[in-house]
């Protein structure tokens, strides 16, 4: 049954310096990547919808830090952070955003639909709630093959109200599938606050009627995320069935680039930024533990900025797909 265990602010006893520096670096990479993506969008180099992950970095980075090689990841359309956390090359992700042949999906998927077979990243899905059932299918495949893999399935607070999410919960528990459902509760489904959209706002309880345990986690604290994800993975991997983590997080930017932002105040955003920023949090941790000084942090910052500059330059200059690519990949070719 639902376990209610609010994660404490974490001081990471015994946590390895290199590990925390690595988490910090990846979170910073995502932050800078997204800032640059926003800039390229403004310049007209990125089209369509573009949903930035700024503010939510600790979730994907914390979870990804405990996954194993046989595990899978799947998420919705706010997916840039997950791809970078999974180790995809920022150049290829950025080139996909600009619709180039070298992009992670050959320029055919765009911001919302990217995949990496190599990193076991199964998208990148534009339909709200779809990752829940597709991800449950990934978990079913793990069970079918008895390969010890766990599917990490991300979706937002808005998607949590979708019928297929509940249908998937039901099947996952019924069949005891190795699935970790991660609800990224950033408080707003587009412009609708959770209070205005959900009769039960404690989303970790959403699995209760299916007997799926749930836990609320401070999604702005990467170490808390990491610890909760590790426990959840162990639960799922050991054959106990699915588990649900509600990550309390916050997005600083609009739902997409075309968000007028009328549904919340500037003060609210500034407050979170000042008090709960996930990157500041790790930086303080590193400093207070004496794990990194100004010089070390500056070096990481410089390295990340260089990577992002390279990615942006690559995404701007690498060519668009050949016209003939229009007709490829519709079907897997079969021998006649």
């Amino acid at each position, binding site marked *: 049954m639902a376990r209610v265990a609010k994660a404490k602010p974490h001081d990471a006893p015994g946590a390895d310096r290199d590990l925390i520096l690595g988490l910090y670096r990846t979170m910073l990479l995502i932050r800078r990547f997204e800032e640059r993506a926003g800039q390229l969008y403004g310049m007209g180099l990125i089209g369509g919808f573009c949903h930035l992950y700024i503010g939510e970095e600790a979730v994907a980075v914390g979870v990804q830090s405990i996954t194993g090689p046989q595990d899978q990841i799947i998420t919705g359309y706010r997916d840039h952070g997950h791809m970078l956390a999974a180790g995809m090359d920022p150049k290829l992700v950025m080139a996909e955003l600009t619709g180039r042949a070298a992009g992670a999906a050959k320029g*055919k998927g765009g911001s919302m639909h990217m995949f990496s077979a190599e990193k076991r990243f199964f998208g990148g899905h534009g339909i709200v709630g779809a990752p829940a059932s597709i991800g449950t299918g990934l978990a079913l495949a793990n069970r079918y093959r008895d390969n010890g893999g766990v599917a990490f399935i991300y979706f937002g607070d808005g998607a949590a109200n979708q019928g297929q999410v509940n249908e998937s919960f039901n099947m996952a528990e019924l069949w005891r599938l190795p699935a970790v459902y991660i609800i990224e509760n950033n408080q707003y489904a587009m412009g609708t606050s959770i209070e205005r959209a959900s009769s039960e706002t404690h989303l970790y309880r959403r699995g209760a009627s299916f007997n799926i345990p749930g836990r609320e986690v401070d999604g702005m604290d990467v170490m808390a995320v990491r610890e909760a994800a590790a426990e959840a993975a162990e639960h799922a991997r050991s054959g106990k069935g699915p588990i649900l983590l509600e990550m309390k997080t916050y997005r600083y930017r609009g739902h997409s680039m075309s968000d007028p932002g009328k549904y919340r105040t500037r003060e609210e955003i500034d407050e979170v930024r000042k008090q709960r920023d996930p990157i500041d949090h790790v930086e303080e941790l590193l400093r207070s533990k004496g794990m990194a000084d100004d010089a070390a942090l500056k070096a990481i910052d410089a390295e990340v900025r260089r990577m992002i500059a390279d990615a942006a330059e690559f995404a701007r200059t690498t060519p668009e797909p050949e016209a003939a690519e229009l007709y490829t*990949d519709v079907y897997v070719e079969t021998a006649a």
Partner: protein
Amino acid sequence: MTDVLMPALSPTMEEGTLAKWHVKVGDEVRSGDVIAEIETDKATMEVEAVDEGVVEALLVPEGTEEVKVNTPIARLKGDGVTAAPEAQPGAPVSAPDGDRKAEAPASETQTPAKARANGAEPPEAAAGPPPSDPEIPAGAKLVRITVRDALRDAMAEEMRRDPDVFLMGEEVAQYQGAYKVSRDLLQEFGERRVIDTPITEYGFAGVGVGAAMAGLKPIVEFMTFNFAMQAIDHVINSAAKTHYMSGGQMRCPIVFRGPNGAAARVAAQHSQDFSSWYAHVPGLKVIAPYDAADAKGLLKAAIRDPNPVVFLEHEMLYGHEFDIPEVDDWLVPIGKAKVRRAGRDVTISTHSRMVGYALQAAEELAKDGIEAEVIDLRTLRPLDHGTVVASVKKTNRLVTVEEGWSPMGVGAEVAMRVVEEAFDWLDAPPARVCQEDVPMPYAANLEALSLPSVDKIVRAAKAVCYR
């Protein structure tokens, strides 16, 4: 005196086996008593007495097969209370539950003959692979098999061949399939590979897609394609587009299958042809077979195909027997139409159950000296329009037949391809025979009026021949 009649236990039942009597001559029965057990190829049911009285005679012995619906099976000596002049068929006790299966027992006042006013299948003698069928290896022995068993055998053979193939859907395992297409699969392959799902089409379609993306080869059965509308998001947005959206990285080798098209007397929500809906979508392959050989050969090909396939079966054909070649690993290529009957005067392009209607119409037309060429499209995407175009270049006339509505339909597409590629060969505007442009009505007479019929096909063919 009251006759107990062989009941119709489903909208499509025409006959059954009287498996067991629970009463003997001289027994007194009351309304609600179980008096017999009846088996069909779909299900076993108990028959309750509707009338009261003493059993005077059992007219059909236990174990008799092929007892037609409405045949008197027993006679009761009434006590005068319920001695109605008209006999009532017994009502089944354990009919498969509810409307979802289109299996609700026929109502007592509905005479089965009327109920099947639209369901008169043409004689199969006119169909099936002709002896000269080039697809059948010379010397291959032909065996009679129902479409239902052909589909079952296709799944069983592919599951034996490839451990990644599994079946999931509502009632596919313990119940043995709502239409018994998955009969005995649970027994052979176990519950790991034959998975009963809750009634949650959207969710389990997505689960199937995820399993396919992870490399398995799921067969997802929809109890009928009417319910697949809840899942069409995953069929189209998730399955059909993934390979393209991922730049060729992700595959989705999945088969969505189940009965599609007009059923009998189940009205608008349970009786509809979705052929053109799916055939519209790039990334999907769409198959709609007519006979047992194609059902088996194409389903096996669909399961092996690395792309998502929508496989549209027809409930009204499940029980029909056809000849099928007895060869190892019978496969029929996806994307090739079949000329079912050669003719020089008019081309009839059709698919699924309507192939039988078209063949019967061709026999009728032949009596008037019109030789129709009947083309079974078999695969709707990719559409083998070349076979239709070649035929029209010979006959100069085209009639399309489908159970779907005509606007934006399969016939519209076929006719357009002919106009594009054989405009100068046409001697008459193409004609369409379709479901009338209304939701399927319930009343037997209206239902029959709304559907394509042999007569409508004959009239359309004559019209394009200016006869």
